[in-house]
């Protein structure tokens, strides 16, 4: 093995095990970013504002009366579902341990799906704040102003979610079209 090959070894972030559990390995800075993101989710969920409008799309786009009823029936469940997922992320981060700058944990299958949901919720929130478009390149940018930092967190969460969904896609059995 040549030296330069050793240097470019990329740590695998998510590894799905046969029993459905998922091993996670993140750098200290990365896991802190996820932890902070989950805390921000929980805060936003306690009093959802303008930036979280994307969490509550209307089912009836042209029917205010039915939409009002639909929102009344579903909104609390929706908030509770997202809150539970964010809390699962926070708890599972505490369950892991940091060794030599790398945080490692084993997520149950249920926890792994909660991570995926929370990552998506966070990206919907951040993406709305950043006003992202499909044409944007989701790569980290240079700079230190708050907008750039927020953007880099968004790009990081996108990459993280992409890796996790690839691990979980194969775990879903096709039940056949209903």
């Amino acid at each position, binding site marked *: 093995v040549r030296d330069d090959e050793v240097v470019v070894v990329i740590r695998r972030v998510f590894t799905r095990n046969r029993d459905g559990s998922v091993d996670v390995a993140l750098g200290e800075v990365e896991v802190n970013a996820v932890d902070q993101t989950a805390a921000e989710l929980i805060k936003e969920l306690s009093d959802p504002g303008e930036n979280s409008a*994307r969490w509550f799309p209307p089912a009836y*786009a042209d029917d205010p009366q039915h939409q009002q009823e639909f929102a009344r029936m579903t909104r609390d469940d*929706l908030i509770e579902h997202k809150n539970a997922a964010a809390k699962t992320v926070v708890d599972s981060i505490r369950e892991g341990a940091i060794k030599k700058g790398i945080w490692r944990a084993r997520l149950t299958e249920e926890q792994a799906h909660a991570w995926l949901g929370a990552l*998506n919720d966070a990206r919907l929130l951040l993406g*709305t704040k950043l006003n992202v*478009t499909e044409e944007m390149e989701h790569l980290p940018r240079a700079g230190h102003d708050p907008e750039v930092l927020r953007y880099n967190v968004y790009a990081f969460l996108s990459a993280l979610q992409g890796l996790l969904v*690839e691990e979980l896609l194969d775990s*879903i059995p*096709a*039940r056949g079209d209903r």
Partner: protein
Amino acid sequence: VITAPGVIIAHGRGDAMSARGRSAVVARTTTAPERIDRPETGETIEPDRPWIVIVWNDPINLMSYVTYVLQKLFGYSRPKAQRLMMKVHVEGRAVVSGGARERAEADCARLHQHGLWATMERSS
């Protein structure tokens, strides 16, 4: 929907664009029942037209994640879920399920739980 950064969507692109896939999707959207004439009363009854559930394109959800959600919620096969995802991506919307009002509302709620932009309307 967008491609996850640093992750290559390697499978299914060709299949997603196949003509067979498109016609299957179209068939699902054109299931409005016809008017039924009841001879005993001479009365014409228009049965409830079924509802369809539509997923709309958005710039945040990952392509792979949308495929995951459609597989998880509806039990669709990977190729079918990818076909629908690509339809959302390319055409801006796709009909992903349908049925009675209650069914459509429940599907919308589940899609919203997973962060997809879903609406429902009467099939035309």
